[in-house]
C-alpha cells in the first residue's frame, strides 16, 4: 500500500478521516436539532461496533491473524455488566475491572492455544472457542439463558449519568478516539513494527530473533480487551444482555466491517462499521414506493447484504478507506 506523501498535509484520506470523526462528534447536536432521538441510538451502535472492529483490526489488519471469534469478547464485556448488575453491583469501575480481568485472562488462554495454529486452523479454532462461550452463555439459566436478561440499571461511573443518551454517546466517542490514538501510537512503535513484520514474513522475524508468538499474543489480548470495552458499552446501550451478542454472525460482521472500511488502516474499521450499519438500517426501512418490492427488501435485506459482501470481496478489495489511501494523488 502506498503511504500518503509526507510533504502534503491535506490529502483525500486525511480529509475523509477528519470529516468522518468530526461528523460522528456532531451527531448528538444534529439529533437534537432535527428532533430525531433515534439517530443517537443508531450512531451509538455505530460507535460501539467501530470500537470493536478497530480492536479486531489490530490482529486482522496489522497482524494478519484472521480471528473469527472476536464477538466472544463483546459477550464477555456485556455479561460482566449484566451479571454484576444482576447481583446489585452497578459500580462501573468494578464492572470495568472485572470485565477487563476476565476478558484478559480468557484472551491469554485462548490466544495461547489458538496461536499454536495458523491459517485455516486458526480461523476455525477461534470460531470454536467463541461458540463454546456462546453455549456457556445459553446454558446460564440464572442469567436469562437463551432469552438474555434485562439490566437492572446502567453502569454508574461517578458523575457520568449513562441514562442520558448523549452522555453514553460521548463516552463511546471518547473511548473510540482514545483507542484510535493509542493504536496510532502502537502500530508505529517498535511493537507495531514487529507485528507488521510478522504479517509480511513471520519466519524472517523469528530468525531475526524476535519472539514472534509473544508479540502476536500481546496484540491478540489488546485487541480482545478493546472488544470487551465495546461489549460493556453495548450492554449499557441496550440495557440488555443476551447470547446473541456473541453469535458467530457477529464475529463475521466485525470482519466485514473491518474489510469493508479498509484492512490495516486506522480509520477503515470506523468507516466500515458506519457503512455496514447504516446500509442495514437503510435497507430494513427502505421506501421505494413500490409496495411489494418494499416488503421484500425490508424483510429480506440480509440477502442483499450477503450479495453486497460477496461483491465487495470480489471487486473492492481494499475497502472504502483503503481505496482512498491507495488512489493516485
Amino acid at each position, binding site marked *: 500500500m502506498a503511504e500518503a506523501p509526507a510533504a502534503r498535509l491535506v490529502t483525500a484520506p486525511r480529509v475523509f478521516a477528519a470529516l468522518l470523526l468530526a461528523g460522528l462528534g456532531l451527531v448528538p447536536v444534529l439529533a437534537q436539532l432535527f428532533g430525531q432521538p433515534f439517530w443517537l441510538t443508531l450512531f451509538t451502535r455505530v460507535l460501539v461496533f467501530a470500537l470493536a472492529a478497530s480492536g479486531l483490526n489490530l490482529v486482522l489488519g496489522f497482524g494478519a491473524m484472521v480471528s473469527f471469534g472476536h464477538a466472544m469478547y463483546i459477550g464477555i464485556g456485556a455479561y460482566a455488566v449484566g451479571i454484576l448488575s444482576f447481583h446489585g453491583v452497578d459500580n462501573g469501575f468494578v464492572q470495568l475491572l472485572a470485565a477487563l480481568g476476565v476478558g484478559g485472562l480468557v484472551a491469554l488462554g485462548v490466544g495461547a492455544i489458538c496461536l499454536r495454529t495458523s491459517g485455516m486452523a486458526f480461523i476455525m479454532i477461534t470460531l470454536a472457542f467463541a461458540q463454546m462461550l456462546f453455549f456457556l452463555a445459553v446454558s446460564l439459566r440464572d442469567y436469562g439463558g437463551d432469552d438474555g436478561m434485562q439490566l437492572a440499571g446502567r453502569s454508574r461511573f461517578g458523575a457520568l449519568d449513562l441514562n442520558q443518551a448523549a452522555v453514553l454517546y460521548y463516552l463511546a466517542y471518547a473511548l473510540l478516539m482514545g483507542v484510535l490514538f493509542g493504536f496510532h501510537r502502537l502500530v508505529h512503535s517498535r511493537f507495531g513494527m514487529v507485528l507488521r513484520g510478522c504479517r509480511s514474513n513471520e519466519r524472517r522475524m523469528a530468525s531475526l530473533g524476535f519472539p514472534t508468538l509473544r508479540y502476536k499474543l500481546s496484540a491478540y489480548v489488546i485487541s480482545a480487551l478493546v472488544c470487551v470495552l465495546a461489549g460493556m458499552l453495548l450492554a449499557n446501550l441496550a440495557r440488555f444482555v443476551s447470547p446473541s451478542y456473541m453469535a458467530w454472525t457477529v464475529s463475521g460482521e466485525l470482519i466485514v466491517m473491518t474489510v469493508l472500511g479498509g484492512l490495516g488502516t486506522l480509520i477503515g474499521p470506523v468507516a466500515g462499521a458506519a457503512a455496514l450499519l447504516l446500509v442495514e438500517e437503510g435497507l430494513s426501512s427502505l421506501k421505494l414506493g413500490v409496495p411489494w418490492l418494499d416488503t421484500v427488501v425490508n424483510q429480506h435485506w440480509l*440477502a442483499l447484504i450477503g450479495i453486497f459482501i460477496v461483491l465487495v470481496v*470480489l471487486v473492492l478489495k481494499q475497502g472504502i478507506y483503503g481505496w482512498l489511501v491507495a488512489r493516485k494523488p
Partner: protein
Amino acid sequence: MTTGLFLTQLLNGLQLGVLLFLLSAGLTLVFGIMDVVNLAHGSLYMMGAYFAAAAFNAFGGSFLAAALVAVPGTLLLGLLIEQLVLRTLYRRDHLDQVLATFGLILFFNEVVRFVWGPASVYMNVPGWLSGTVNLFGLPYPAYRFAIIAVGLAVGAGLYAVIHRTRVGMLIRAGASNADMVSALGVNIKGLNTLVFGLGAALAGLAGLMAGPIVSVQSGMGEPVLILTLVVIVTGGIGSIRGAFYGALIVGIVDTIGRAFLPTLLRELFDRSVAQAVGPAIASMLIYLLMAAVLALRPQGLFPVKHG
C-alpha cells in the same frame, strides 16, 4: 435399562457422527486440495434439506423423488457457486474466502425464507423405514439405523474411490502438491470442480437424510457447519480418514456428554451445582476436546501423510 439407554445413546451418537462425516468429507477435501475456506458448506446442507422436503411434499411423500431432487440439485448449486464466486477466490487469501462465503450464508438463509417462508418445513420418515429395528433385544428407529448404514456405505465408497482409482490418486496428489500435478498435465481446475461438486452432493445427501429428523428451517446449516469445522480440525485438515474418525468421535462425545454428564455430575456434586453446570459443560465438551487436541497435536489426530 441403563445399558439399553446407553446403547441407544451410543447409536444416536453414531448417527450424528455419520451425518457429520457426510458433511466433513466434502469440506475437508475442499480445504485440503484447494486450500479454500468454504463456510457456505452448511448452506448447501440446508438447501439439500429444503430441496428434499419440497420434492417429498410435491411428489406425495416419495422419498425416492426427494433423493433424486436433493442430491443432484445440491450438486448443481454447488457447481454454480464454485463457478460464480469461489473460482476467483482460489488464489486469494483465506480472509477473502471467509468473507465471501459468509456473504453467501446470509444470502441463502434469506432465500429459503423468501421461497419457503419463515416457518420450518416438515418431511416425514418414508413409510418403509418408519418401524423399529430390533438390535439384540433393543428397539431402535429403522430410519436412524438407515442413516448410519448410508453413512458407513459412503465412507467405504469414498475410501475405495480415493485409494483405489485413478481419480482418487489425482485427488491425493493434488492435495500434496497441486502445482506439480498441474505441471504433469492434469487439468487441476477440472479436478477442483469435480471435488467441489462431490462435496456439494455429499452435503445434499446429508441434508436429505437429516430432513425427516430435524426441522428444516433457515439457519439450520450453521450449527452443523460449526460442528463440521470442529470435526475437520480435530481429525486433521484434508484427511478423509481424519474426517471419518473425527466425525464419529465428535458425534459420540457430544451425544453421550449431553445425555449422561448432567446425571454423572449430580452423583458427584450438589444437586443445584450439577443442574447449573451440567448442561453448560455438556455443550462445551466437544470444543474442549478440540482445544485439547489442538494444544497437544496442532495438526489434528489423523493428519494427511505426505511423502
